[in-house]
């Protein structure tokens, strides 16, 4: 072990728990809470994935009788669509990268014994859990799950008689989202305070790993965005249950004039997308942090342009709040507003490109180790670029209007927000698994999982761009009877087969995950020869993270291939003298 600088300490924020309940259920330990988030998200992603499979099957074989479910009706398709989007966006893309990995590793990476507010941390997880249960309950109430999509556009979502799922199911959906907002706000509060106040001695902001930076900025986005979504949800609940008209104009449903007047559906869209666009970055920024960390570690090179990467994360976060209107080009907004939103949206391409070029610069001429975490990190960059390139298309109102309601948009956001973010999670799982569970995952099955998933994801979502340009609408439960789309059926069928194979491949991952927990080879404390603080402590880390010690930080997080050093990496808490020559 390197000579490492640590200070002894005697107290911890809370004592090590003893009983099963306090240790594993209502735990205050950020590592246990991180794992709870991780497994909640794992459960959610499988639910969401099965829903997507049902949708794909229905799209190409609309009359097929599915075991246990039967034939999927159009309204059921819309419910599947709504629940798939909601589960994936909130309980997977928001929950795992931030709540899971962020909770587990942010305190350790900054040298802290725990989160700033452990009780709040526990409450945050269990509130998220309740939100998930409430959402799932929507499947089982009279009328079933709501139809209004994960974006919940009013007035469809604001009235109770617009469809079978718009009764109690929709109330549960809104309640779940509201509870989730409160949980996320508690989490964000903890992340920000912890980062600002619990960094170890020597851990200046500009020595923080880029993962910490991404979790920190993500928390700020969550802090500002979820309050707005909460406000939107409260207004929606009032409209639905107490007769107000915030979102509902004078409207006739099934020949019946509703008792509402003067509300604005656009108000919902403004409030929702003010949250909704930053949510994209809440999902993807942690993946960017993980990719940066892994590309540097597995290329054995310092990250290219650390400061530029930090400022790019900030710029993406800042601009993310300025562009919500690009989701509303179809709403009839003023062309001047559309122009402003379009310009700001395209401006996000600048920090995104900085990040991409810096990632490429990092691996350029590096001694790259193509292990599974690295493969997924490279996959992340690939998907981020592929999905991101269609962003500037949709950022232009003249192109967005014909493409907006087509499969083009579905392909775009699934690549950049869905699959890229999930690749970030896979990379994080393979990378940190040894630290979390003390064993290594199977490398061979990891590679097989990677290649099937990469090819599968591209096979599902790249053709959607073509389908969209050919005019295939999104949100339609059936298109096979439309003559002008007949020629697209074979491609759709191929995508469904690709989805089946890709989903099947995820069982490889799950089996590898659980098998390796018990049977994987024992991991050393630093199997990847990385530099950040989590690799300086034992595996798995003790209750207080550093076994009664507090690390003192002397270096930046990416000191690889330092000339003159005995090895090609220097741990952050190594007291070695480094003389700067630039």
């Amino acid at each position, binding site marked *: *072990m*390197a*000579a490492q*600088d640590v200070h002894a*300490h005697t*107290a*911890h*924020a809370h004592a090590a728990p003893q009983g099963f309940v306090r240790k594993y259920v209502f735990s205050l330990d950020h590592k246990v809470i991180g794992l709870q988030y991780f497994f909640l998200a794992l459960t959610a992603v499988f639910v969401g994935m099965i829903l997507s499979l049902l949708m794909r099957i229905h799209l190409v074989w609309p009359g097929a009788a599915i075991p246990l479910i039967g034939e999927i009706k159009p309204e059921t398709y819309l419910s599947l669509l709504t629940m798939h989007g909601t589960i994936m966006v909130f309980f997977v893309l928001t929950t795992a990268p931030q709540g899971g990995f962020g909770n587990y590793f942010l305190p350790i990476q*900054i040298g*802290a014994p725990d989160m*700033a507010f452990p009780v709040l941390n526990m409450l945050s997880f269990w509130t998220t859990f309740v939100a998930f249960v409430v959402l799932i309950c929507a499947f089982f109430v009279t009328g079933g799950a709501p139809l209004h999509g994960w974006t919940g556009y009013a007035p469809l979502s604001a009235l109770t008689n617009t469809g079978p799922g718009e009764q109690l199911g929709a109330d549960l959906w809104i309640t779940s989202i509201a509870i989730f907002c409160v949980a996320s706000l508690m989490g964000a*509060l903890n992340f*920000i*305070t912890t980062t*600002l*106040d619990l*960094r170890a*001695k*020597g*851990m*200046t902001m*500009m020595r923080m790993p880029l993962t910490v930076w991404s979790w920190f900025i993500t928390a700020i986005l969550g*802090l500002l965005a979820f309050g*707005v979504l909460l406000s939107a949800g409260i*207004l929606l609940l*009032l409209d639905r249950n*107490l*007769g*107000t*008209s915030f979102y509902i*104009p004078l409207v006739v449903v099934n020949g019946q*004039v509703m008792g509402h*007047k*003067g*509300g*604005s559906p656009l*108000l919902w869209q403004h*409030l929702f997308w003010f949250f909704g666009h930053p949510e994209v970055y809440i999902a993807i920024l942690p993946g960017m942090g993980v990719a940066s960390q892994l590309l540097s570690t597995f290329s054995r090179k*310092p*990250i290219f*342009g*650390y400061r530029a990467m930090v400022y790019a994360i900030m710029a993406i976060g800042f601009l993310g709040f300025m562009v919500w209107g690009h989701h509303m080009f179809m709403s009839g907004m003023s062309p001047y507003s559309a122009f402003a939103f379009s310009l700001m949206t395209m401006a996000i391409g600048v920090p995104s490109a900085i990040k991409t070029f810096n990632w490429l610069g990092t691996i350029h001429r590096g001694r790259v180790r193509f292990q599974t975490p690295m493969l997924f990190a490279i996959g992340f960059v690939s998907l981020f670029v592929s999905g991101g390139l269609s962003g500037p298309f949709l950022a232009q109102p003249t192109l967005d209007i014909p493409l907006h309601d087509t499969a083009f948009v579905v392909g775009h956001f699934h690549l950049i927000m869905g699959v890229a973010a999930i690749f970030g999670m896979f990379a994080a799982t393979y990378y940190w698994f040894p630290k979390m569970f003390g064993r290594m995952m199977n490398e061979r099955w990891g590679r097989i999982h990677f290649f099937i998933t990469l090819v599968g994801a591209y096979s599902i979502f790249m053709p959607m761009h073509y389908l969209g340009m050919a005019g295939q609408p999104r949100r339609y439960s059936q298109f096979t009877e439309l003559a002008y789309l007949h020629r697209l059926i074979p491609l759709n069928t191929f995508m469904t087969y690709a989805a089946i194979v890709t989903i099947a491949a995820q069982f490889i991952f799950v089996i590898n995950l659980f098998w390796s927990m018990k049977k994987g080879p024992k991991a050393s404390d*630093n199997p990847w*020869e990385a*530099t950040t603080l989590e690799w300086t402590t034992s595996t798995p880390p003790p209750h207080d993270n550093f076994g009664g010690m507090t690390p003192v930080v*002397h*270096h*930046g997080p990416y000191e690889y291939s*330092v*000339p*003159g*050093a*005995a090895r090609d990496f*220097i*741990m952050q808490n*190594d*007291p070695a*003298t*480094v*003389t700067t020559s630039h």
Partner: protein
Amino acid sequence: MATFIPAVEIRAPQGGHGGSDSHPPLRGGGDGERGRNGGPDFGQRLRRARLGLAVATAPIVMLFVSFASAYIFRQGLPTLDDKSQAYVREWMPVNLPVTLLLVNTILLAVSSLTAELARRQITRQVALLPVRSIPGVSLGRETKFPWLGSTVVLGIGFLIGQAFAWRELAARGFYLATSASSSFVYLLMATHAVHLAGGVAVLLYAAAASLLGKSLESRRIVVDVTAWYWHFMLVLWAGIFALLEFAS
């Protein structure tokens, strides 16, 4: 594991990376919960709690900014009239019970003052703790006015006053769903009341904390943070009142 030998002088690589200075700054952030003698560091916990509160105000502000934005947005929106089938301006200003609301505002302002006095009182008590623990040293009997209890009573008084204001609104014909303007009045007042009720609950906890065996230092943290929160509630209410009265 790294085996780099610290005695070797090395050059930093040319590539950009965070912080190559080998000398650790005096402090990067916090230092856990540890005081100099290894016990809990209440000063640090207080600082952290204040920071947490400052961070927590952001989403509360965003919540109210959302409502206020919606209020202004909705105010300027024409409505389709079902009889004439034309777009008309139908914003109906709410006849607020201004006098009652002014009395409530004074109650809240006074409670903010008592909260501040409670905060200072407990701060002084904590500061004098080490002196009191010296054998043979007496500071005499300090008058302990119940500022904390007064704040709770005034806070509950404000909430009751708001309930009276709603009754008055109802008596004037303004219910939640009567018009867009009345919906916003109830919404903003109720959301503020819920937040203030949370503050009352925390103060009640602080008052009961001594019975629960909490140390004076711990109670001081709760009272301190809640007092700042209380001031924030006052400012927030002033903003809401001004919005409802002057932007109606």
